[in-house]
């Protein structure tokens, strides 16, 4: 099961991409205003994400459907 954690854009430099399913900083999806992004992982929580709110896949889909994350004009 995948878990999702929203982080501030300023925290991207602290992400260990060996411990999450995102490929690199260049492939992260950011919120429309660029202030937030998220990472996903399976299994144990990576140490740098401990203490942060985790979302399920269905919860994350609801969040991403909002205007904060989805530009209405994008393809």
């Amino acid at each position: 099961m995948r878990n999702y954690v929203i982080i501030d854009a300023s925290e991207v430099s602290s992400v260990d991409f060996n411990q999450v399913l995102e490929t690199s900083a260049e492939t992260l999806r950011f919120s429309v205003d660029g202030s937030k992004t998220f990472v996903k992982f399976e299994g144990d929580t990576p140490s740098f994400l401990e203490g942060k709110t985790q979302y399920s896949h269905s919860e994350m889909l609801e969040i991403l459907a909002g205007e904060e994350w989805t530009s209405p004009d994008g393809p």
Partner: protein
Amino acid sequence: MTFILPSFGASAISAVPGGGAFTNTYSLEYDATDDGARVNTPITLSTSSAWTMSVWFKMPSTLGGADRSLFNSTGSDYFRLGSFGAYNYVEVHDGSLRYYVYSSNATFTNWTHLMYAHNGSNSYNFYLNGVLETTLTYTPSNGFDIDWLYGRSGTFPTAGALLDEVAIFDNDQSSNISAIYNGGVAGDLSPYSANLTHWYRMEEGSGSTVANSGSTSSSDLNLQNTPTFSTSVPA
């Protein structure tokens, strides 16, 4: 803008071209959050030579008014899957040109085959599930560029989908639509290998790349953010 509401005529299931050696076990599944698949070497389909795109796709849920794009470019070329009222549609977005093909034949929550064939001049045949929905006539200012097969980085919406047997040919395959659609069963495209430049079979089952089984070198798919492989296939 094109509006068409064709009836859906199911084709008889035909034999799989190429004999019994062809197997199809996996499709590529996107999780609707940030998954993507980028072509290692971007593809440009010319305005002045013939080509064909062919793709099988399936959405895990109804569109609900959301848009989902196939064959994205870094610019303004893409196919957008959407819904309006009771009808699903495919928007062909080729540069500044937009055409909407509404069809009762477009139930995207089932495995769906889309084929778009350019005759090398200004004519484009648009097929859904083996049926010629419309022939679009236009002259884009630039070729159709493909950088992503589905999903892309950034703030644009991505959406869950299964993709399988994605192919690009360097000729017009309209005359072979019945064999390629194959009664709704993704079949062996190797009989068309002389013109098959890209063929992403998704048979890896795991990993971060999908090999191009077509003739163009250095054109594998680089999977971004770990899409998975599903055993649901158009069969």
